[in-house]
């Protein structure tokens, strides 16, 4: 039985520092939910509050209808996978996985069946008699996973479980975790600082910064429609260009003039005039010859990366932007010093208020 998790106005303070600041989330049953943010943003603190290792200063957390604020950590029925796996070094693989079942006084026969089943699920049934010191990082990760799911917890918590693995294994394990989670249909709260991992693995992502929620959405929405400058900058690469809304019509069509010298019109959601920030992803720029209309610039540097070429282009106002051009669309790499003109599809860009806290497009 998997729970939905409801977090209501939760606050955690350490002295003057507010680690988690008024966070509310509604995580659905069976959902793969990721807390994403830079280090120190409060994501791990929040996870540990759910696990019961950090007290909840204010606010409430519910598993289903059950308020868990005052339930001891060992009675919360949550599985947890730790960043460093926290495998008990003096117990072998089998006993590590059986540990939680023994604590629950599960009959011995059933323990055996369930442990073997869990080991099989994570494909390490051959290692059951190994000591933790004889396991590789990836294998330890699987033991940690088996140990957390074998107790059939109502909620599964994962604290940066892949951060200690090498790049290749990380991608392999994240697929294992994703498949396993869907198979078991277990509500999962996953903490990571790796945005690519979060995009790849999650049903929904909550982006946190300085203890506050920045945006909660599906990965595609987070990437394409960031709600503020922080999210636009944190997820993927974005170029921020200053501009001004010179006028806006009744049907919300705004005339925007970029400081770098291009004027265009697009629809906005909010009636505003004055300075704004525009975010454009490197792949959304279209490079054209210098004589065509667009933002004029000069190639400062290029990096050939196989499937695409990454350029640094200096605009006429001195700002440098990142522009990607796919190799399949071009015949040669543009040389340094070439004058170009940059354009974009207004549907693919985002317009923010000048302070960056709100999206208006």
């Amino acid at each position, binding site marked *: 039985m998997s729970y939905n998790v409801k977090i209501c106005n939760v606050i955690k303070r350490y002295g003057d520092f507010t680690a988690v600041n008024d966070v509310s989330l509604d995580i659905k049953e069976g959902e793969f939910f990721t807390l994403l943010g830079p280090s120190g943003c409060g994501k791990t603190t929040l996870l540990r509050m759910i*696990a*019961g*290792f950090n*007290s*909840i*200063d*204010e606010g409430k957390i519910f598993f289903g209808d059950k*308020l868990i*604020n*005052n339930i*001891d*950590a*060992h*009675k*919360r*029925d*949550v*599985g*947890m996978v*730790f*960043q*460093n796996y*926290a*495998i*008990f*070094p*003096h117990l072998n693989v089998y006993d590590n996985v059986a*540990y*939680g079942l023994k*604590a*629950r006084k599960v009959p011995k026969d059933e323990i055996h069946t369930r442990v073997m089943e869990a080991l099989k699920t994570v494909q390490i049934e051959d290692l059951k008699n190994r000591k933790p010191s004889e396991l590789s990082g990836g294998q330890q990760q699987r033991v940690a996973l088996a*140990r957390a799911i074998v*107790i059939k917890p109502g909620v599964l918590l994962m604290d940066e479980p892949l951060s200690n693995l090498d790049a290749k294994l990380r991608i392999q394990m994240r697929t294992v975790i994703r498949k396993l989670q869907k198979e078991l249909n277990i509500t999962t709260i996953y903490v990571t600082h790796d945005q690519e991992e979060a995009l790849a693995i999650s049903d929904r992502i909550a982006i946190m910064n300085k203890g506050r929620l920045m945006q909660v959405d599906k990965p595609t929405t987070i990437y394409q429609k960031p709600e503020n400058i922080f999210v636009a900058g944190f997820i993927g690469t974005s170029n921020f260009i200053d501009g001004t809304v010179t006028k806006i019509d009744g049907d919300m069509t705004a005339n925007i003039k970029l400081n770098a010298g291009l004027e265009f019109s697009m629809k906005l959601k909010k009636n505003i005039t004055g300075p704004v920030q525009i975010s454009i992803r490197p792949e959304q720029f279209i490079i054209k010859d210098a004589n065509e209309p667009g933002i004029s610039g000069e190639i400062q540097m290029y990096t050939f990366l196989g499937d695409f070429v990454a350029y640094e282009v200096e605009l006429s106002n001195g700002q440098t932007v990142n522009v990607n051009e796919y190799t399949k669309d071009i015949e040669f790499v543009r040389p340094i010093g070439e004058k170009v003109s940059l354009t974009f599809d207004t549907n693919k860009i985002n317009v923010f208020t000048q302070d960056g806290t709100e999206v208006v497009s």
Partner: protein
Amino acid sequence: MTAKAGKFKLRFDFWSIVKYTAIVLLIVFLVYPTFRLFFLSISDNKGGFTLKYFKTFFTKAYYYRTLKNSFATSGITTVFAILLGVPMAYITTRYNIWLKKTIDILVIMSLMSPPFIGAYSWIVLLGRNGFVTKLFEKIGITIPPIYGFGGIVLVFTLKYFPYVYLYVSGALKSIDRSLEEAAENLGSGKLRRILTITLPVIMPTLGASAIMVFMSSLADFGTPMLIGEGYKVLPVLVYEEFMSEMGGNANMAGALSIIVILCSTTVLLLQKYVISRKNYMMNATRPPAVIEVSKGKKLLLTSLCMFVTILAFLPQVVVIVTSFIKTNGPIFVEGFSLGSYEKIFYKIPKNIANTFIFSFIAIAIIVVFGMLLSYLFVKRKSKTTGMLDVLVMLPYVIPGAVLGVSMLVAFNKPPLMLSGTAAIMIIAYVIRKMPHTVRSSTAILYQIDPSIEEASINLGVSPMKTFFKITAPMMAPGVLSGAILSWITTINELSSSIMLYGGKTATISVSIYTEVVRSNYGTAAALASILTVTTMLSLVLFNRVSKGKVSVV
């Protein structure tokens, strides 16, 4: 609101019980005796306040000279220990000499040997009727007497230089090769490298080991008692003032004790604030290169190191050999026999049993309390546990003789009439050896990742059960190795035992002392051999348990 209410609930959980029990026990058996000692030192016979004992101490040469003597012997010993230990550590870590393992083992055994057998053996060799002395007399050479200042320093140096050697070797091995390579790369020659890089980096460690030597020498009672004769140091004076049948003065002993405690506290604080300030944490991924030298040089360096090592180890050989020599009263005669052993097993089997029983009980208590307390200090940090930590460490600055006096003063009348019982000996051992176990357990605990415990709690095991199922088994090998070392020092304990023993509670070390005083060198040697052999066997066990992961110092 509900979350906050829980905080104010008075919780008598397991760890609170441990905490308060420990506080009560330490107040009764450590704080109270120390205060009694303090009051004794500042009260006259009618119970009024007086400073006359301190005044006497600082005005009468008979008294204040011992303070000077204590500092002189400890200070000179420290200098010699550094002069022996540092070069030896450098040679064994940096050159490809032979017998490195043997040197290490013998040096460790010398350090862990019973504290007074050094004095005993050097008397047997170089004393008035010593083997060597007589040998030289035959060919007409008179050896200067071993008794007094020179003898004390000789024995102390050979006994305690291993601290310097072991600490500094460890530090030298943990300097990453790249550090010296960087200095070389920057154009610095070999001597310059040693003086500007290597030496400064090991300085904190060297300082810590020097303090160990100084404190151990300052607190040592057996050696100066046996070999000092007229040359008195503070612990000896404490013993004499308190014990001497004629005109013993408990108040004066109290004042002396307070002075000793102040001295060692000062030294310890000095170490804490001057030396430990800069500690370079290092973990060599590439330990320094071992230099290959020519055969001749190698032989020379090996002989130098072996010479010092054998000199340090000699007392144990002497003790074992002399225990098998025939005796006629106090005189060793020609031929070998088991007579000395027969005598001790016939005369004082009880003392031998006492040693092992008392020590075993003490160690069992120390292990359990040490583990629980270190857990409190690391995982349940609070103001109370901080205070408790200071209390537990207090015996570091209280020499055994002084601790003995304080307990006698406190528990020689009802309601806690303990003097002469086994209990008071065991309590003294527990208090004296606890700091070491707590320190090593604390270090082990810091190495255990907190998430391991959290994983257990998360899987449904309560925090208390988690301690016994996860934390304790993980700590066990380290704590057990520490316990074996404490066991060794406990069976060899003399200074507190000699204050506290009664007719039925004498131990081997007490008997050795009394036998030496009565010039029964044969039986003393047999008794000392029992301790030496037990110590060696315990060290073998220690190596098995610790698997080389726990250092003896």
